[in-house]
Each structure stands twice: as structure tokens, then as C-alpha cells.
């Protein structure tokens, strides 16, 4: 464990503050982009052992089987993976909320497809807002893999891919997003891989030294 990056309490506070600002900006920009008010809760930051992340995510929702998920990897100096969880039953509300225009026959036969595509589209934008704003604050540029939709259970193997070294703790940001007009809410987890935890710490230290 000696090579692992750890955050001091001061660094964690500074990181928390940065993220509060980042998510605040993300919420404001998001509302503008999708033309609808979106609230993002203050992110909760945790250092978690990689192999327990799936359990952590599962524990955050009452009935993990009732959730669908959008997963997206992002790459930059800040890199990792994001999971957006939404109750299956809310996905239809999203279709109503974002009124995707398709003809009636498509709507009838492919409502499941339509729900899935709308969840992917909106998930992609929410993830882009949060990751993009964090990267911007830390003066980084990130690129993304296309988002993927998963309706199955939240699997450990699945969540652990692309997270790098096994021994070190991963940094997890959790936020609750709410579309107030329809009272639709879901959870977003951003997991920074082991390599970017070191970079994040350095970025936070830079900011702290700028304050002294």
C-alpha cells in the first residue's frame, strides 16, 4: 500500500470545496443546455477499495435490480469511469420530459428502445456536464467513450474494469440529480482511476499552495 496516494484532511477539504464549485457550475450549465431545471446535490467524496465499489454503488439504492445504468469511460489526466443510475420506472418519464419525436408506430413497437436511447442521451449530457466542469476547473481536457446502457444487475467485474491498480483506493464522487419538473431523480458516480488520483492530489496541492 506504500505507493498508494492518500489525501490529508486538508487536501480532502480542498477537493470537496473544488468539487462543490464544479458541480454547482455543472448544474447551472446543465439546466441551460437541456433547457430545464436540474438540481445536483453536493457531491459526496469517498476513498474506496476498488473491489468494494460495486457493493458501495449497490448499497446506495434500495432495489438494485430496479435500476438501469449508463456507463461511460472518460480519458484525460483526470480519467476514470462514470455510472449513472436511474430507476427503470422513471425512464418513461424521461421520454415524456424530453419529448423525442418519433411516429406513433415506432413509439408503440419500440418503447423499450426509445426509453433506452433517451436515458443514454440524457445520461451522456449529465456525465459530460459533471466530468467536463471538473476537468475545466482542474485545467484538464477529457475525451469520452460512447456511453453504454445496462439493464442488468450491477456487477463487480463490470465496475472494476479500467480502474487500474488493484491495491490502491479509488476516489468516488456521488451526486443525486433531480429534474424538478417531473420529480425524476437518479444517482451519478464518478470513479477516478488509481493513476488520476495521484494527479488529482497534485492539482489540489497546486491550488493549496496558491492560497498560501
Amino acid at each position, binding site marked *: 500500500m506504500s505507493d498508494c496516494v492518500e489525501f490529508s484532511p486538508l487536501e480532502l477539504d480542498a477537493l470537496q470545496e473544488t468539487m462543490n464549485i464544479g458541480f454547482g457550475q455543472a448544474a447551472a450549465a446543465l439546466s441551460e443546455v437541456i433547457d430545464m431545471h436540474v438540481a445536483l446535490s453536493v457531491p459526496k467524496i469517498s476513498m474506496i477499495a476498488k473491489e468494494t465499489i460495486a457493493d458501495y454503488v449497490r448499497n446506495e439504492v434500495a432495489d438494485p435490480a430496479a435500476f438501469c445504468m449508463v456507463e461511460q469511460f472518460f480519458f484525460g489526466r483526470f480519467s476514470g469511469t462514470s455510472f449513472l443510475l436511474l430507476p427503470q420506472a422513471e425512464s418513461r418519464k424521461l421520454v415524456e420530459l424530453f419529448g423525442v419525436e418519433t411516429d406513433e408506430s415506432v413509439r408503440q413497437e419500440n418503447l423499450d428502445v426509445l426509453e433506452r436511447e433517451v436515458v443514454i442521451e440524457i445520461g*451522456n*449530457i449529465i456525465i459530460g456536464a459533471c466530468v467536463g466542469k471538473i476537468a475545466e476547473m482542474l485545467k484538464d481536457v477529457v475525451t469520452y467513450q*460512447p456511453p453504454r446502457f445496462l439493464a442488468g444487475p450491477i456487477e463487480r467485474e463490470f465496475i472494476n474494469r479500467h480502474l487500474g491498480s488493484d491495491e490502491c483506493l479509488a476516489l468516488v464522487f456521488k451526486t443525486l440529480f433531480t429534474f424538478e419538473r417531473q420529480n425524476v431523480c437518479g444517482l451519478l458516480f464518478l470513479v477516478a482511476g488509481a493513476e488520476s488520483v495521484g494527479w488529482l492530489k497534485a492539482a489540489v496541492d497546486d491550488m493549496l499552495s496558491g492560497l498560501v
Partner: protein
Amino acid sequence: MNSIDLSQIVETLSLGVLVLDPEARIVYWNRWLENASGHSFPEVRGRSIFELYPELENPAFMRNFRSVLSFGNYAYFSQRVHDHLLPLRPAPGATASGAEFMSQHCVMGPIREGPRVAYAYLTIEDVSETVIREKLLSELAMHDVLTSAYNRRYFDRRLAEELERSRRYGHSLSLVMLDLDHFKEVNDRYGHLFGDEALKHAARVWVKAVRVSDVVARYGGEEFCIIFPETGIDEACLLAERARAAIAAAPVEFGGLSARITASAGVAVSRPDDGSDDILHRADEALYRAKAAGRNRTECSA
């Protein structure tokens, strides 16, 4: 190292590539797009994409365009939802040339100058041929060859899905099982070709008699099932009775012969813990009662 002139690639790609500035003015338009749209680059350069294609100024496109500009992420316009983003005609000579528009898969991404997103690019892939092949295959996989009604395989899958959906949203779902009366005698008396025509006729009449959202399927032999999604028993009984009356009122005409055929109908409504077999069993029981009570009638199970 000298930088390579990538425009040589972009100009010859089998893919539409365009670049928009933050005001949605066209900054770049490749040769593929010149061909597909009939507009040359000099003709569209500096013009707003919305002036060229007003239908693009819709909420879905706008939020994705703004997202790419604000967050520097990527947007994916699925063919399955949008079919096409730009109203381009299908490529001439292609199998898809009968379609009104070219089916497209589109991706939008950022072009940065330093950390700032200065432009958004859009790539347009022609997926018409794939879509047509997919449609053809799914038609074949979903429909009964003789009657063009949905087949048993599709029906089984759809019923399971609709039951799941009705549980998820707390709606009820109804089902009618219809059986042509004395079908064996029709076959014996008028011949099998006439019998086949009677089956096709029944499917056509029933598709017309019910709603677009209802699923008319050939269950087997002379038996058909219709799923009524999000429908309670009372409404389902009315619809089933309408289907029964429609077939009784429209004689089969074939090869100079005409014959009146009738059907018996059994209706059932879903219960919270129903599997497909449970609701089918109740519909079948109701159908049996209709047959026993003299045929050409509708029975509803409570």
C-alpha cells in the same frame, strides 16, 4: 515533422463531415455532403445550418449541440430514435432508394482551440442499407408467412414483455383468444386454398377492427390472439366483441365462392402475478365457454 494535410482523407471518406461554429454557421462541409445534399461547400459556407435545414432546430439537436459546446463531450444521434438528422435523400441506385430519407447514424464532437471549444463537428454515416436489411429480417422473424399477422414467436415474447410492463406501471393488460368456428368444415367444403384465404381474411379484418397499439397474432391453426396493452376487462370485451362482429359481417370471397365465417372469442385480464400461461389459460377457458354456448359469441372471464 511536417503535419499531414488530413483534408485529403476527410474529402474522400464515405462519411459526411461538417463543422459548425458556436452560432451554428457552417465552417466546413466535405465532398460526401456536397454529393448527398446537392449543396456545394462554397454555397453553404458561412450560412447557418438552421437556414439550410430548419427542422434541425429541435430541442434534441439543440441540447446536444449546446452540450458539446459547453462541456466538450460527444453526442450520439441514434438512427433508432431519429432515423435521420439531416433530411438527405437516399443514395441513388441503392436498395434504400425507395425510402424518403437516408437513415443516418450521427456523432457530434468538440474541436478545441486551446482549452476552449471553438467548433463542433458532425459526422453522418449512411446506415440505410443496414436498416433495410434489419427491417426485412425482423419482418420475417415477427410475422406469420400466410396471414402477415404477428407469429407465435413474436406473440410469446411480446406477451411476456407486456405483462412485465403492466406490472412495472400498474396497468392492466387484456387478451382475447379467437377461434374460427367450424374451420375444418370450411376446408372440407370449399378446399384448402379457400381455407387459407379465410385465415388471411380474418387477420385483415381483425387488424382493422382493433387499435394500432393492439397486437394481432396467429396463435396456431385457426386460432388467433390479440393483446390489448393497458386495457381493462370492460374495454377489452368491447374490442373483442367488435372483432367477433366484424368477421361475422364480412364474408370470405375467393375463386368465385363466398362464405360467411364466424369466430368465438374468450377474453381475460391480467392479474398482478400472472405469467403468460396463466392469462392464456383463462382466455382459453372463456373461449371454451363461448364454443360450448353455441359459438359466434364473446365470453369474458372475470
